[in-house]
């Protein structure tokens, strides 16, 4: 069923009785051409693009809980492509362009809002760094604008400009950045993949990876063995745990990153502001809540909750940047589990086991990169994103 204004109007007249479920709830088949482990943004996008770009429709996406119940439902919804390095920028910009056409492609309202992402700076040195980053972005054909303090003040007048410790000297703005509705991204990809024949299988936890003679044969799950000669892992947060099922040891530590929302207030911030010096960023949701976050707690954790010292730290940064927020109540806080890779770079690659592919190590930057599998990043991207010769062989070890 295609979603459209006419469909909404028709269903309004029929009392909404004609809506059908957005994706099927299939039982797992004994054998697939490809299995993707992990039903988050990356896993579902992989399933979708395998079907759309590569014509591979006998595909299953397996999810331990319900789709989007992990980090895809726990992030702060920001999308951007304001990267410096030549290996990163074209890759993230490719993702940004996917965001720009995503709703039409998926026939689903993912509420992409290009409200801008503004990175503040507070010193001459930081201005130089921001200018360098902006120039690097523009050399890659990406929009970037360097704002002085007056321009920042005109855009976001409610910030604390008079801070003696971190006076706002300006900001680097990417106007095409912004936010997207994280749950809708998950639902949109699931529905679009399902419509192309991909099986979305929820409540199906992978408990083992069957490998024989260096080749993957399939996965053991709580719903039985499912065979496939190609298995892709997209389970950020738990990548080490799942990869260990195949005997792999990864250059990753799992850390908890907290996020927060305030009570809902009238429109106050119409962009995304990052305060790097205070490890803080903030935007406002359509419901009116301020959505903000800071640094990781800083110790290994698989708990989807953090500790109080970091809550205090983030609240302090919030008040330092937006003094009027001191009278707001914090409504909720939560934590997501991040794959923190040792060099800060993600891994998308083959592994030493034939047929087993790995997508991991996104640190706290996975949401804005729902990517297309087998997309070849431009030359120079290899050091970051994977080399055909198999850098995972260098970056992880088979024990």
């Amino acid at each position, binding site marked *: 069923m295609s979603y459209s204004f006419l469909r909404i109007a028709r269903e309004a007249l029929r009392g909404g009785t004609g809506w059908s479920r957005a994706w099927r709830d299939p039982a797992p088949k004994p054998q697939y051409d490809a299995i993707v482990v992990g039903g988050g943004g990356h896993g579902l996008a992989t399933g979708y693009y395998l079907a759309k770009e590569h014509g591979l429709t006998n595909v299953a996406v397996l999810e331990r809980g319900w789709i989007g119940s992990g980090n895809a439902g726990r992030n702060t919804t920001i999308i951007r492509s304001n990267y410096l390095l030549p290996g990163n920028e074209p890759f993230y910009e490719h993702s940004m362009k996917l965001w720009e056409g995503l709703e039409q492609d998926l026939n689903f309202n993912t509420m992409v809002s290009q409200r801008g992402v503004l990175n503040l700076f507070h010193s001459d040195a930081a201005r130089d760094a921001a200018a360098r980053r902006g120039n690097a972005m523009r050399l890659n054909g990406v929009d970037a604008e360097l704002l002085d303090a007056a321009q920042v003040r005109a855009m976001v007048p409610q910030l604390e400009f008079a801070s003696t410790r971190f006076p706002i000297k300006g900001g680097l703005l990417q106007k095409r950045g912004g936010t997207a509705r994280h749950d809708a991204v998950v639902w949109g990809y699931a529905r679009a993949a399902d419509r192309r024949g991909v099986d979305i299988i929820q409540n199906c936890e992978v408990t083992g990876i069957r490998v024989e003679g260096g080749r993957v044969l399939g996965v053991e799950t709580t719903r039985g063995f499912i065979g496939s000669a190609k298995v892709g892992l997209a389970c950020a947060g738990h990548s080490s745990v799942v990869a260990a099922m195949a005997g792999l*040891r*990864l250059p990753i*530590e799992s850390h908890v990153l907290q996020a927060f929302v305030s009570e809902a207030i009238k429109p106050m911030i119409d962009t995304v502001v990052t305060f790097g010096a205070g490890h803080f960023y903030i935007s406002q949701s359509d419901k009116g809540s301020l959505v903000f976050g800071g640094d990781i707690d800083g*110790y290994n*954790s698989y*708990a989807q909750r953090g*500790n109080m010292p970091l809550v205090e730290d983030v609240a302090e940064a919030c008040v330092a940047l937006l003094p009027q927020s001191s009278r707001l109540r914090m409504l909720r806080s939560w934590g997501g589990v991040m794959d923190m890779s040792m060099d800060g770079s993600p891994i998308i690659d083959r592994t030493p086991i034939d047929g087993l592919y790995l997508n991991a190590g996104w640190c706290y930057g996975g949401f804005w990169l729902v990517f297309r599998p087998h997309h070849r990043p431009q030359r120079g991207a290899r050091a970051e994103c994977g080399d055909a010769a198999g850098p995972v062989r*260098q970056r992880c070890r088979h024990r």
Partner: protein
Amino acid sequence: MRIQCPHCGERGSEEFLFRGAADPQRPAADASAEAWSDYVHLRDNPVGPYNELWQHQHGCRRWLVVNRDTTTHEIFSVIDAANRERVA
């Protein structure tokens, strides 16, 4: 999270600096590049009990080996890193 420092008593985790895995053994200086790369990058990253190094930065400044559950944050043991081999 509260950590029982063997020298200073129970203190909030914000007094401590987290260093990371305590178990990787530093290779010999002339070990292969591969052995060094493994030591620097690869981690077991387990769900459950984990030996890790914390420094009581705002207290006695001693390095401690903390055995902590990475899911519940429960702490099972804390010893001074200097005593580690005698205990183990």
